[in-house]
């Protein structure tokens, strides 16, 4: 086996985006007839690495070899020439076309013969055991069928090195099993397969070898048969780094928000939240950890009254009236009036909550316009508020009348969080408030949250960085595929422990079995 060169080999590959190093000195080998898993947390550089193999990015340093010969992959077309096919997380399909029409899109100038193409598609399906009707329209398809179309698309183009970017993220367990069967069949057919994932049990189930990346760095490659979950977790999350974030002891914590057994379903009937229960206390920061898309957004939206729940209760102890109310009976506006505030920082920052073309004052008014009773807007109060936020949070801006989109990311986030804090909330939910911020701005936000905590606010903090969660939060709730897999104490929690809770399925049963 070692005599034949690897189907694709990377040596010392490095990629930087500005100052951010996405991949640093990565070595990788994939042989024909094997499945290699690439394991890593969010932002560990898995997708960037694969994008370099598939020609979307070009490496800054390092070499790529195909069958032992060094190659330059400068565009997706080059990658296609070397028979590399990538199946992206976000499908690129035309909805009103049939499967076949999508598959033949952009290739060949020969005679246009849909029937012949359909029979070819059918042939590929049968060979690898896909279930797909070639003439079915994409808009009629389930997510898993769409994925099948994407896979057949690269096979139809003759790919024999396949890269799948988190293919199971959108699949049900049954569909995942089916996909794995197909992948094994393709492996046995002599194809080299790379699968990107952060789910440990899938790595163990499907791969022959595992390469681990952490924060852009290549850690190691191990044979799947010779490793186990805890070893992989340790490689993935690494040692704890000290950040020195202040953390005060909670003062007289009281149960403020009691979430009981809530569930909600997303598109295609996938459970986005599955029987989630927890309590958020006043004067405490509750962290929420989890792989991206594990239900964090749905959970916060459920509390804010923006999700349709299929079951459960959200009880709120109102400190003003000393009464307990069920937030499920309330409209989003009523929930806001009760003092439950949500500030969500989406990936594109301006997507939710702020209007980019409006200035800071007008964005303040988006939350307060209902208070006005005259036909004309009262701009005085929001102007004062905007000025206060600019002064208190040191927002760097030419003035309160500058459109928000002209501010830098950190300053946009300060405005967003500042607006919610200004309303003296009782429950403050902050999702990814430090996303994309530099270190100083991040500490500013941590301090803001800590100050709220000292004022007796129940803070819920959804974060991505485990080191931050462990140092900032009093307790950390771990979400995994919509389920709560654990609530740990931030003061005593181990990083590996949280990492395992985030990535492993069937945690309860298996861990008990393992002792």
């Amino acid at each position, binding site marked *: 086996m070692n005599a034949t060169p690897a189907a694709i080999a990377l040596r010392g590959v490095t990629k930087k*985006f500005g100052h951010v190093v996405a991949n640093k000195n990565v070595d990788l080998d994939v042989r024909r007839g094997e499945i290699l898993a690439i394991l890593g947390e969010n932002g560990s550089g898995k997708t960037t690495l694969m994008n370099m193999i598939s020609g979307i*990015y070009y490496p800054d340093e390092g070499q790529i070899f195909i069958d032992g010969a060094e190659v330059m992959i400068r565009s*997706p*077309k080059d990658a296609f020439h070397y028979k590399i096919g990538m199946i992206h997380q976000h499908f*690129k*399909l*035309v*909805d*009103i*076309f049939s499967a076949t*029409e*999508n598959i*033949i*899109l*952009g*290739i*060949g*100038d020969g005679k*246009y013969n849909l029937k012949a193409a359909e029979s070819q598609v059918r042939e590929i399906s049968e060979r690898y055991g896909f279930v797909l009707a070639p003439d079915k*329209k994409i*808009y009629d398809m389930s997510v898993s069928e769409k994925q099948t179309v994407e896979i057949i698309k690269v096979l139809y183009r003759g790919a024999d090195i396949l890269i799948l970017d988190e293919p199971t993220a959108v699949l049900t367990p049954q569909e995942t099993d089916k996909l794995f069967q197909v992948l094994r069949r393709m492996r046995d057919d002599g194809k080299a397969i790379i699968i990107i994932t952060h789910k440990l049990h899938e790595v163990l189930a499907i791969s022959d070898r595992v390469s681990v990346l952490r924060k852009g760095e290549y850690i190691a490659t191990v044979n799947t048969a010779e490793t186990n979950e805890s070893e992989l977790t340790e490689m993935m999350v690494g040692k704890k780094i000290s950040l020195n974030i202040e953390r005060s002891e909670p003062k007289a914590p009281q149960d403020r928000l009691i979430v009981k057994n809530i569930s909600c379903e997303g598109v295609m009937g996938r459970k986005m939240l599955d029987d989630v229960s927890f309590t958020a206390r006043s004067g405490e920061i509750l962290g929420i950890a989890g792989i991206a898309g594990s239900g964090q957004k749905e959970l916060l939206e459920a509390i804010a009254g923006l999700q349709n729940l299929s079951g459960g209760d959200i009880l709120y102890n109102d400190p003003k009236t000393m009464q307990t109310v069920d937030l499920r009976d309330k409209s989003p506006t009523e929930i806001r009036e009760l003092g439950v505030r949500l500030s969500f920082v989406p990936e594109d920052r301006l997507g939710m909550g702020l209007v980019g073309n409006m200035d800071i004052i007008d964005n303040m008014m988006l939350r307060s316009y209902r208070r006005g009773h005259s036909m004309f807007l009262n701009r005085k109060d929001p102007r004062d508020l905007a000025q206060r936020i600019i002064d208190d949070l040191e927002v760097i801006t030419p003035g309160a009348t500058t459109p928000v989109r002209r501010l830098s990311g950190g300053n946009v986030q300060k405005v967003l969080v500042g607006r919610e804090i200004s309303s003296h909330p009782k429950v403050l939910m902050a999702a990814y408030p430090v996303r994309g911020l530099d270190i100083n701005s991040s500490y500013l936000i941590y301090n803001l949250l800590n100050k709220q905590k000292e004022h007796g606010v129940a803070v819920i903090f959804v974060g991505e960085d485990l080191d931050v969660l462990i140092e900032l939060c009093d307790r950390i709730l771990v979400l995994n595929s919509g389920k709560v897999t654990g609530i740990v104490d931030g003061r005593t929690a181990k990083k590996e422990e949280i990492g395992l809770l985030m990535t492993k399925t069937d945690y309860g049963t298996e861990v008990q079995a393992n002792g």
Partner: protein
Amino acid sequence: MFSMSVLVTFIHQAIMQGIPILYGSTGEILTEKSGHLNLGIPGIMYAGGISGVIGAFLYEETLPSRDAINPVLAVLIPLLSSILGSLLMGLLYCFLTVTLRANQNVTGLALTTFGVGFGNFFGASLVKLTGSEIPSVALTNTSQFFRAYLPVADKLGAFGQIFLNYGFMTYLAIIIAFVSAYFLRKTRKGLYLRAVGENPATADAAGINVNRYKYTATCVGSIIAGLGGLFYVMDYACGVWSNEGFGDRGWLAIALVIFAVWRPDLGVPGSIVFGGLYIVNQFVTGLPMRDSELFKMLPYIVTIIVLIFTSIRKKRELQPPEHLGLSYFREER
């Protein structure tokens, strides 16, 4: 009320009314399939008309006498100048919306205003050149070649009147519509064009040159639409150009796109229906002037009904291209 001969005249006139609209809608469908909502079509049809008129006028001016006219040149010169005029309009629209990614609605409306103004300006200038008392330019000499039909038509009674009694541009319109339908549904390039209008990112990833398809479809669409303007002056209006004479036919063409659910082949019967509805008031006797104008709303009302119907059915095939009206930005990092 309708005698046989009236019915035959009605159908004949409905088709004559429908043809300019059919040109416009076929052109607009091709454009929209590339994801561009060209609201400049009324202006482009106007420009296509006046460009043809200018070409014909200049040609007629060079002739020593009426009889010296060459039939081939008399057709070719207006045809080519019309194509050139609407092509330039199409290129302008493309440059603004494809290359500069300007807002398509604003650009289109501006182009319509521009095209109408352009037409009126040159129309008035030509009138001045002729020194005529009436505010119109008559190119009857050129028009006779556009209006020429097979002599047998007159001998075949109703059949001849309904099917054969038309100039060549009528048949050209129908042929273009069916060829466009075939192109969109049955050819590889048609598939790619539809992919561009539905989901340009996907088309781009598949290696299709998105901007080239957008430019080509929009420019070819503009040329076809412009021919509608030419047909209107040279055939329907017997070679007489008068400012604003074209009316709202450009907007009717855009309405027909919706009525025909983005299918050029359905545009053919659709244009006849529109043409019929447009002139039905002339066939209802004893109607006061002001009421007859109400009848001209009928095509729009029918379009709204179709729109309601297709919106309720929610069938994806009856919907406009998904990316219609949106500029395409390639993701860049």
